[in-house]
């Protein structure tokens, strides 16, 4: 075939399509060329090809200098040597140069064990750094509620920048300064919380070193658990159960719902609840809002459409800072995390007969933006959710307590805030929230029972942008689904342009693929198959649930009967809804 290129790598003949890189060609014959800055996430249309670290250099015959394998296209007849002594010496020296300007605090580094630079130092058996230079970069640590930027550790791979600018189109990060002082920074080097950063955490997810990490809250949680005067309640988000197992060596996509509940109970939480409960609650509120807006729209009223889901705090941050003119269209429903916190510290606290400040609500989330979101909602100087920890932090807590998740029995969540439907668990995947809403809205609008609850058209997308047309009785609902903020931007631009596709509802998740790929999930290290395995796991869990529609959740019914009266009631509004404010950010 004419568009195939023949090259030789380390004596092996390789045939690859034209346009392939040496790195890709090497991979096809099992030659592993080490890389650092390179990151190929083509599933979400991101390839970080800055070729800046120079670790992957190889010898190409006839070329005067070494070539970066990650960014050098193959050419017919090319002869490549990936493992000569010259290459080894170059890689070693480049690595030593990098290490000479990198803090050696692996003992206390949040990335230790997951650090790609550490892996390379190990691979090359670096025992001393021959480069005798003494200066080290020094930058001020930037501590936001969600993300900590420790730019002394930045190796200028620029993955975060590519992610933030190209995939998420947020534009919070960019390289600044020259030479040794060059670093990835925010505009005017402002702290993250003054920038357009949405805290989606995708930068943390791709950072190969400890320059970008989550704001850890595990010790605060341990202290709360140790406090005999506190009742500590935990909620876990849907996506957590599909990824936590990876931290314990289980296959990606292993469901560990029961073991996780057991672990949380053994960690000392007084009540082990489920954010899924609150997801069902969210559907009650959001579907009511959708049906209401639709009905009024059909009656000729001028109502803001499409309705945008509002479960994702990073997405809310995005619209507040980037599209302040569209703030009337998102649903006013708070996210499941916050609905849970509000209900736990009102309804459930009242049931227990304790004051809200005697209760500590901890959330386990796949997300870093949730940490920030938790600080936004409080009553009487007491946050509805006191601490939000990531999936990674929970895994760490479990290990710290000498437990192996694999060895734990499967246990159930506690009642009443632990009961949930299958609709709730798919909240963790792109398309899941809107599917859950449709299951309920369908029955409310048509008055008929929805037999097949799985909306295949919606399910068909793993990443990216999708428009689906769903029959609800006589009505065809035009549904937009987007994951990744770049895709969200595309949909918002469409709405600004007058909503030509007449979309009625849009679900947006900030992270590509949904919460299963959140900034707080176990590091995928560029392996998108893990993300798809987690997505599939959530559908499996949904499938196995006896109740698959939110409005059929008996605990939810009871909550309305006993406390909230009905969706969108005054009390519900007070506890479960919010308002959006435009944010001026750089």
């Amino acid at each position, binding site marked *: 075939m004419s568009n195939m290129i023949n090259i030789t790598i380390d004596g092996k003949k390789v045939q690859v399509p034209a346009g392939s890189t040496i790195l890709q060609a090497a991979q096809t014959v099992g030659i592993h060329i080490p890389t650092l800055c390179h990151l190929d996430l083509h599933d979400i249309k991101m390839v970080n090809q800055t070729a800046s670290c120079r670790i992957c250099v190889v010898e190409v015959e006839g070329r005067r200098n*070494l070539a970066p394998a990650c960014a050098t296209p193959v050419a017919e007849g090319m002869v490549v040597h990936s493992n000569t002594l010259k290459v080894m010496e170059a890689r070693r*020296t480049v690595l030593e140069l990098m290490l000479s300007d990198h803090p050696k605090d692996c003992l206390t580094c949040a990335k230790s064990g997951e650090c790609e630079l550490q892996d390379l130092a190990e691979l090359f058996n670096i025992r001393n750094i021959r480069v005798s230079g003494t200066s080290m970069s020094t930058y001020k640590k930037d501590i936001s509620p969600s993300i900590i930027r420790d730019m002394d550790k930045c190796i200028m791979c620029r993955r975060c920048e590519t992610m933030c600018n190209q995939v998420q189109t947020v534009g919070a990060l*960019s390289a600044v300064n020259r030479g040794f002082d060059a670093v990835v920074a925010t505009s005017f080097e402002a702290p993250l919380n003054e920038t357009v950063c949405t805290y989606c955490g995708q930068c943390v997810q791709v950072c190969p070193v400890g320059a970008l990490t989550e704001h850890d809250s595990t010790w605060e949680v341990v202290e709360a658990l140790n406090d005999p005067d506190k009742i500590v309640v935990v909620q876990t988000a849907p996506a957590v159960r599909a990824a936590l197992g990876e931290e314990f060596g289980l296959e990606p996509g292993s469901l560990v719902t029961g073991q996780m509940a057991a672990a949380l109970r053994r960690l000392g939480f007084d009540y082990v609840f489920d954010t899924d409960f609150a997801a069902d609650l969210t559907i009650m509120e959001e579907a009511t809002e959708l049906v209401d807006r639709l009905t009024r729209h059909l009656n000729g009223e001028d109502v803001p459409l499409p309705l945008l889901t509002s479960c994702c705090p990073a997405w809310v941050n995005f619209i507040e800072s980037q599209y302040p003119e569209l703030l009337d269209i998102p649903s006013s429903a708070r996210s499941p995390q916050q609905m849970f916190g509000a209900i736990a510290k009102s309804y459930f606290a009242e049931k227990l007969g304790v004051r809200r400040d005697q209760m500590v609500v901890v959330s386990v989330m796949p997300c870093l933006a949730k940490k920030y979101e938790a600080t936004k909602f409080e009553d009487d100087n007491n946050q509805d959710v006191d601490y939000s920890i990531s999936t990674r932090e929970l895994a760490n807590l479990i290990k710290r307590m000498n437990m192996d998740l694999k060895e734990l029995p499967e246990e159930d969540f506690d009642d009443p805030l632990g009961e949930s439907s299958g609709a709730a668990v798919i909240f963790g995947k792109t398309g899941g929230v809107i599917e859950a809403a449709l299951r309920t809205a369908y029955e409310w609008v048509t008055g008929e029972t929805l037999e097949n609850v799985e909306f295949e058209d919606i399910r068909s997308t793993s990443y990216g942008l999708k428009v689906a047309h769903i029959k609800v009785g006589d009505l065809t609902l035009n549904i937009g689904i987007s994951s990744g903020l770049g895709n969200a931007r595309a949909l918002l631009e469409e709405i600004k342009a007058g909503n030509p596709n007449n979309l009625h509802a849009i679900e947006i998740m900030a992270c590509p693929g949904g919460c299963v790929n959140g900034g707080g999930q176990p590091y995928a290290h560029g392996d998108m198959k893990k993300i798809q395995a987690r997505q599939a796991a959530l559908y499996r869990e949904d499938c196995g649930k006896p109740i698959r529609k939110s409005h059929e959740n008996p605990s939810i019914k009871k909550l309305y009967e006993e406390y909230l009266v009905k969706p969108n009631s005054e009390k519900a509004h007070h506890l479960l809804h919010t308002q959006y404010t435009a944010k001026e950010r750089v």
Partner: protein
Amino acid sequence: MADTKMHVLVCGGTGCLSSNSSDIVDNLIAEIKAAGMEDEVKVLKTGCFGFCEKGPIVKILPDNTFYTQVKPEDAKEIVAEHIVKGRKVERLLYMDPEKEQHISDAKHMDFYKKQMRVALRNCGFIDPDNIEEYIGRDGYQALAKCLTEFTPEQVIEEVKKSGLRGRGGAGFPTGLKWQLARANDADQKYVVCNADEGDPGAFMDRSILEGDPHSIVEAMAICGYAIGASQGRVYIRAEYPLAIKRLENAISSAREYGLLGDNILGSDFSFDIEITFGAGAFVCGEETALLRSMEGNRGEPTTKPPFPAEHGYWNKPTNVNNVETFANVPVIFLKGADWFNKIGTEKSKGTKVFALAGKINNVGLIEVPMGTTLREVIYDIGGGIKNGKKFKAVQTGGPSGGCLTEKDLDTPIDFDNLVARGSMMGSGGMIVMDEDDCMPSVARFYLEFTEEESCGKCTPCRIGTKRLSELLKDITQGKGTEEHVKELKRISQVIKDTALCGLGQTAPNPVLSTLAAFEDEYMAHVKEGRCPAGKCTALLKFFIEADKCKGCTLCARNCPVGAISGEVRKPHAIDQEKCIKCGACMDRCKFGAIVKH
């Protein structure tokens, strides 16, 4: 110029302007008017004559009288004596240092004798702000010829035949570059002129833009025709205000004359030029970084391939050439590719402009045929080393180049010879060093420059140049060991092999080339704690030679730290513990009794 009898040309380059050449022009005009000769004598502010050492320069035509170091108040005498009475003002003529004679005709000056001005052909001859003068010297005829007599392919063929290679540094064949850009189909292509001259001491591009901006406009239009581009961009550093002004002026006059814009000279070819300002980053002289900067992005190089000829400005096929390269293009069409091809060496054709600087008598801008030897440049044109000192090395190619020594003096200068000797042509900086220059310090100077100017993108350049500069700092401060020298070599080699762009790949050249020729000097620093050139203060010791000391006490009284003691009329001594090596004693001593080593 027809009805005027005499032309007075005053250098209006940046150097001479800063020595008040504008006032000279005003005074000359006023005096000529007062003498009632304004119809016969025309005063022109031209571009640079190149002989910056002796500026401001005033040249009078037709007799080719060359006045040097003219002051505004000299205008009166020049007009009264030379212009009115026809008597040359002897005291302002150039004095040949060897023959100790005044030379009146510039043609007889050694500085000009061996020069051949192709790229600088109009600099110092025409008023750069007047398009008529450029046209008067065959300007825009090359463009007209291309549009009427040649197909674009033939234009490229002609440039290829001329053997012209890029003057920006690497010497890539210009015709081939144009061909590659032509070969890529696109709805829009671009011609970019790289005027982001940034090598320390280099100012040839500035001088061309200041002295002959139309040659660039014309060449870019020819290039546009050849590659099929209708858009040209000049990326020029904002620190060149005069060049920018003259270029803007040239572009707008060319538009008025129909030499830019739609259907140039009645042809189907349309072309226009816009100017983009650089923000002062050296790395933006690298073509991919330049294009990113033009797009409004951070000025950072990107991996090649893809080359700009494929994916350039806004991802469109783009041809980037530097100013001097373009300045050669019109001549190729005026005098023929064969004429051009006969100048120079086998693989380097034409001439090269050099900015001659350092410890040399005739500092300035020169242009010589390729193949001229360093000896001719330094001794014949440059007038030899200042103050009769001994030649040590010449640094060519700026921060990317290296040092050449005595043994290289008879090497014919061309692209390949310089590279073979561990240096490079670069943009044409040439800094001459004498016996007082310390080579590790020279290397340190350049590394501090590249360290500062590295964009910081790739590891070897971002951290490697920093480490090299730290090692050199240690060595020149007496803290070096033999390990330092070993490490310099090792890191230099890896940077050369692995850095992303030309800046990084060539950054170690000053280190490697000085190490190759002067390793003994490095070793003296690290093994003996001695700086042979006497430059590294930290390694110096000041001594009083007892036999020469008269005991006048002047040194002791001037020592700021009281390190010198001794009785009157008896030899003094320096307390090495206290001495801060400021050299005040040595400067004051009237008997040459104080030495340093």
